[in-house]
C-alpha cells in the first residue's frame, strides 16, 4: 500500500503551527507513515499537484480572493481530506480582528499599490468557504493532537471531541477572575491542558467557544464582577472576532 500523500499549505498566519509540528517528537515517526509531498519550509521542489485522495493540511486563515479560489479548487478534487490546523484556520484567528476602516486603508492604497490589488478581507475560518474534514484548534496546535487526528482519519476513526471547558484542566488554586485577571477558560473548549490559566495568564479562547455558551450572559457576569465591558469584548475578539461578528448579526 502506498503512503498517503500529504500537503502542508499556509494561508494567512505565522507558521507557528507548522514550526511546532516540525519540532515535535511526533514529526519524524509521522514521516514514516505519510508521503509529505509539499511543505515549502523543508522541501524543494514542491509537488503542488492535488491528486484524488490527497490530504491537505492548511494553516492560517483565508483573507484574499486568491485564498478562497485555492480552497475551492482543492475541495473540488475527488476524495481529498482537508484538515484545518490551528486557530487561524479553524476560527480566523488574530487576523479576523481587523476593522473595516483598516481594510479600507489597504483598498485605498495606503499600504502600497500591490496590496491594493489583493482585495484583502478579514481572516475567516476555512469552513466559511469549503467543507473541512477535521479541525485542530489551538494557538499553536498540540502536535500530539494532529498526529492523533491523522491516524484516526487514516483508520476511518472519529477524532476525539472536547466538550468541556478549559476550567476542567486548570489546576490553579482560586479562580483568576477573582484575582481581577480576565480569563475566558469558562467558555472555551478544553484540550490545551489549561496551559495559560495554570500560570495565571487569562485564557484568550484560542480553542474556540463551547457551542452552547451564552456569550452575552458571560459578558454581563464579568461586568457585574467589575471588569469593563470594553476589556471583556476585546478579549473575546482576540482570536474569535469572526464568531463575535456573527453573534452581533453581522454578515461575515
Amino acid at each position: 500500500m502506498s503512503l498517503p500523500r500529504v500537503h502542508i499549505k499556509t494561508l494567512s498566519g505565522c507558521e507557528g503551527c507548522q514550526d511546532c509540528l516540525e519540532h515535535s517528537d511526533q514529526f519524524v515517526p509521522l514521516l514514516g507513515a505519510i508521503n509529505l509531498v509539499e511543505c515549502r519550509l523543508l522541501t524543494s521542489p514542491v509537488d503542488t499537484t492535488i491528486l484524488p485522495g490527497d490530504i491537505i493540511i492548511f494553516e492560517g486563515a483565508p483573507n484574499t480572493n486568491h485564498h478562497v479560489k485555492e480552497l475551492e479548487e482543492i475541495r473540488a478534487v475527488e476524495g481529498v481530506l482537508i484538515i484545518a490546523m490551528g486557530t487561524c484556520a479553524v476560527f480566523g484567528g488574530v487576523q479576523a480582528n481587523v476593522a473595516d476602516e483598516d481594510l479600507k486603508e489597504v483598498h485605498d492604497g495606503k499600504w502600497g499599490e500591490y496590496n491594493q490589488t489583493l482585495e484583502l478581507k478579514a481572516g475567516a475560518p476555512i469552513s466559511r468557504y469549503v467543507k473541512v474534514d477535521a479541525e485542530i484548534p489551538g494557538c499553536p496546535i498540540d502536535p500530539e493532537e494532529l498526529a492523533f487526528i491523522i491516524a484516526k482519519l487514516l483508520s476511518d476513526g472519529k477524532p476525539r471531541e472536547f466538550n468541556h471547558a478549559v476550567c476542567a484542566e486548570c489546576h490553579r488554586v482560586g479562580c483568576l477572575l477573582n484575582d481581577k485577571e480576565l480569563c475566558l477558560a469558562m467558555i472555551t473548549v478544553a484540550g490545551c491542558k489549561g496551559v495559560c490559566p495554570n500560570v495565571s495568564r487569562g485564557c484568550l479562547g484560542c480553542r474556540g467557544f463551547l457551542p452552547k455558551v451564552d456569550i452575552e450572559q458571560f459578558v454581563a457576569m464579568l461586568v457585574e464582577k467589575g471588569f469593563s465591558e470594553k476589556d471583556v469584548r476585546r478579549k473575546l475578539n482576540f482570536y474569535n472576532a469572526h464568531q463575535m461578528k456573527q453573534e452581533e448579526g453581522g454578515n461575515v
Partner: protein
Amino acid sequence: MHEGHHHHLEDFGTGGAEAEPAEMIIDITAVPRTEGDVKVHFSVKDNKVEGAVGPTEAPRIMEKVMVGDHYNEAPIHASKFCGICWVPHFEASAQAVENALGIRPTIQTQLFREVLAQATVLQSNVQHATLLSLPDLLRLPNAFSLATSHPAVFAIVRKLEKLGNDLVKVISGRNVGGVVLTVGGMLAVPNEKEVRDLLARVIDAQKDMATLGEVYGSFLTPDRLLPFAREREYISLSPFDGKNEYPYTRGNYCSSDTGAVPITVENYKSHTNEWFPKASTGKFTKHVRNSVTVGALARMNNNWNHIGPEAQALAKAYGITMPDYRIAMNPPAQVVEAYASMFELEALLETILFHGIKYEALPIVGDLGEKIREGVGIVEAPRGLLIHHYTLQGAYLIHANCVVPTGQNYGSMQDDIIFILPEYIRMGLSKEEIIFRLEKIVRDHDPCSSCAVHFILLLLKILKGK
C-alpha cells in the same frame, strides 16, 4: 567581484548563440525552502537589469490589529507575528511597552530573556544553515535527502534543534508563544532542577556543536558557495558603551557606514525610512545607501571584537574575513553564532543557578490615566534587527509600527541580483543554473516573510526574447 569558476561554464552553460539572449525575463513567484512567499522578477535587456524582490503573501496588517490592545496584550499579539521568531518579537514588544511605562525588568528576567534569545539563535541559525541552506551547497533537493546522504549531520541538527526548542519550552512554558512571559517579568519560573538539566544538556551538546561546525566547514568550497562580494551597509545592534557582549536583547543601533547611536522614539524612523515598493506586500527600508543588509553576517561584521576567540577561530577557518561583503558567507556566519551561543548559554544558565531562581512579583503599574506615552524596543532576531514602536494612551495602544528583519533585507537581495545577474548571463549559465543561483541569493539572506506579511513560493520562469 569574485569571479565564478570557469568550469561552471562547461558544467552548466548552454553555450553557442543561446549564451547571450537579447532579452531574458525571470519571474519567480515563490522561493522554496524559505519562510514566507518571496517573489523575484527581473528582466535583462542589453546588459541592463531591471526588477525587484518582494513578498507577495497577503498582508496581515498586524500593526492595525494591535491598536486597542491593553499594554499586556501587545506582546502576546507580537508573538503571533511569526511562529519561528516569536521570542524576539515578544522581547521587542515587551521592551517597547516597558520603555513607554518606565518599567525595568529584574536581573533574573533579563537573564532568562537572554537565554531565550540565545536558544532561538541556536535553533533558528542551525535550522537555516543546515536544513534550508545546506541542500544548496550539496545540490540536494531538500532537507529529507540530507537525512539519507548525511545521517550523522542530520542527527546532530535534530539534537541541537531539540535542545534549543526545549530551552524555550522549559523557560517560557511552551515552544511557540510562551505563556509565562509578560511585560515587566515572568508569571512563573522554572525550578532549579529543570534549569540544571538544561545546563547539563547544553554542556553535553557543545561537542556535538563543535562536530557540526567542523563537518559544516568541509562543505564550504568556493564552487559550492558561489561567493561574490558587493560592498554594502551592514545594520545591527552593537553593545552599549563599555559592554563587551555580542548583542541580541539590548544595545545601540549600529551601521557599518555611520557608526553606533542609541535608538529613541524620535530618531528611529530616520534610520529605517520605511517605504512600500510597487510589487510588494511588505515594507522595505533604507539608510545611507540604496539598501541595507541585516542578519548574522551583519552582526558579525559590526561586532567582530565581541564574539569571543573560539568563534573567531571558527569564522576564520570558514574563510570569513573582516569586513566580509559576500552574502554567501551569511549561513556560515550563522553556524559560527550558534557555536558561540553554546558557550553563552552555559554561562547564562550557570549565572542563573548561582543566584538561585525565585518567583518575583511583577512590577506594580499605577493608574496610567489618559496620558500619551511612547516606547521603542530594539532587539536582534536571528534574521536581523527588529524594532517595535508603540504609542499608548493610558493603558491602551493607539499606534504600532514594527520594522522587521526581512523588510530590511529585500533591498539587499534585490541589489545583489542586480549586481550579479549580468555576470551570470555573460558566463553563459543555463536557465536552471541561473534560477538556482538567484534562489540561493534569496535563501542566503534567510528571509522570513511571515514577519513582514506571512510564507514564500518561488516559481521561476525564464522566457527568452524573440
